[in-house]
């Protein structure tokens, strides 16, 4: 059968980087199953976004699906459109980023397509048939999966894939979905957290704080360090549960998965569930006054020190060395 369909994710009308990472997964998939990489962009006025996605990121055909029912994402209206597109392009694999968007949408798509589904795919390969790998048990176990249905649905662990650039431009086509807006589900609002800092999952540098910081105010020094390095601020679940940081900052199995170039864990003990969300980072630094904290087992560089002196010192020294902004 071949062919992969990627469902693009837009956030407030902007193409998310995770969409391009997912296209990189799709290229890996067509190497195994053959066919073309199709991308479906749904919205109300998404021709510009379709053109942006088509510009050398690894897609062969981008389908722009405009319609009032897609103005704001809800699974109820997107599901039938994705199902129709999957059938129209005869996709063997239908995938989306493993973001809150993809997690919400793709199980519905799988159920409607009668397809088996893989969550958080980290790899697709051939071993006498298409195989997928995915982490579970907080990333402590990796399984190899076989999907027995003709169509297969996946969400993609985008931190494992690097967006492609310089590929041949894709053609852009209009896609018309026969979808009437459902009357039993309504989008009300999206309250975007406005921040000058990069989004956690896109940031090259992440400074994360744990319960050891003792209060929300003490996250201020992490923000100063993050701003010096142009990074984002995250938190462990323990810190979020203690009310020191918003849920949106949570890194770990039950929160966000990040894989920045540099991850600095401050006063984080390193519970299994936290490690699952940051183990893929290129360089990991741990600052913790408890030298036995499990975070040191995954850190490339550990500094056994009190965060309240080490973090301001680090920020000041970076500043005086002219490193960062």
């Amino acid at each position: 059968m071949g062919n992969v369909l990627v469902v693009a994710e837009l956030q407030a009308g902007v193409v998310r980087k995770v969409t391009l990472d997912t296209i990189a997964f799709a290229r890996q998939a067509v190497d195994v199953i053959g066919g073309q990489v199709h991308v479906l962009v749904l919205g109300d006025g998404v021709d510009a976004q379709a053109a942006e996605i088509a510009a050398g990121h690894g897609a062969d055909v981008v389908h722009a699906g405009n319609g009032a029912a897609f103005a704001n994402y809800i699974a109820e209206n997107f599901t039938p459109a994705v199902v129709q597109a999957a059938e129209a392009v005869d996709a063997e694999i239908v995938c989306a980023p493993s973001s809150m968007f993809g997690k919400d949408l793709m199980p519905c798509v799988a159920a409607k397509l009668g397809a088996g589904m893989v969550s958080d795919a980290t790899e697709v390969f051939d071993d006498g048939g298409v195989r997928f790998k995915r982490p579970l048990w907080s990333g402590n176990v990796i399984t190899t999966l076989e999907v027995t249905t003709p169509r297969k649905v996946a969400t993609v662990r985008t931190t494992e894939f690097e967006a492609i650039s310089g590929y041949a431009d894709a053609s852009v086509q209009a896609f018309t979905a026969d979808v009437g807006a459902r009357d039993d589900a309504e989008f009300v609002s999206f309250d975007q957290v406005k921040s000058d800092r990069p989004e956690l999952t896109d940031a090259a540098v992440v400074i994360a704080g744990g319960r050891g910081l003792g209060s929300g105010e003490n996250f201020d020094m992490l923000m100063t360090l993050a701003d010096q390095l142009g990074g984002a601020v995250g938190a462990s679940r323990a810190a979020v549960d203690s009310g020191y940081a918003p849920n949106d900052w949570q890194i770990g199995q039950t929160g966000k998965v990040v894989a920045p170039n540099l991850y600095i864990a401050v006063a984080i003990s390193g519970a299994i569930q936290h490690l699952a969300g940051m183990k893929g980072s290129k360089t990991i630094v741990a600052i913790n006054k408890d030298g036995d904290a499990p975070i040191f087992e995954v850190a490339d560089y550990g500094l056994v020190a009190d965060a309240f002196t080490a973090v301001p010192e680090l920020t000041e020294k970076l500043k005086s060395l002219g490193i960062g902004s």
Partner: protein
Amino acid sequence: MKIVTTVKRVTDPDMKVKIKPDGTGIVTDGVEYRMNYFDEYGVEEAIRLKQEHGGEIVVVSVGADASTKEIRTALAMGADRGILVETDEELDSDAVARVLAEVIKEEAPDIVLMGKQSVDTDRNQAGQMLAAYLGYPQATFAFELKVADGWATVGREVDGGTSTKRVKLPAIVTADLRLNEPRYASLPGIIKAKRKKIDRKTPGDLGVDTANRVNVLQYEAPETRAAGQIVESVDELIEKLRTEAKAL
């Protein structure tokens, strides 16, 4: 208002999971189990909805006989009766959703409250698949739930902020961590739970073929990171990050 809430028996996520040497599964000997964390938030929200609107809470689990323990925990927290759909098979989320769909059709609740994902298989699929199979609307990753006039207004955790969605009942709502603070079962609650009824069924009784669409071929441990080094000072840290890791 009739509420269905679901619970899954999972391995204690605070324990280190071990993989069988032949890679066919995880070691279950000596492993402790508990109710999936996220399901506790679903059960708690069900109790709060019942306190506000009255009605009945039915707690459903799909799993082995031992899952009656987790059903009893939910009954001790405040649910009214239980249903165990008993199977010793390791079902994929699709099979679980198809089993639950038949239970929901029989029970005809106003709302179904579930955890957003289980902390063992981490799939985050069953609630959404259940909504698709039933044709119900869904509101996943809920941190706030209000029910009035036959609709649920749900605050949802999404990337980049929060979102609000309204769904007409009956609907599926999956719980995230900020939704509430799950209560502990009280001693009187535990005693009362012993007299509450748990019905048993099998997927066959419900007419569901539980053949999996996704098969696990192999379990393995992830690659471990090489052990790092301890630096003595902030200066040394900056030096190593610049020259060795080239991360600055």
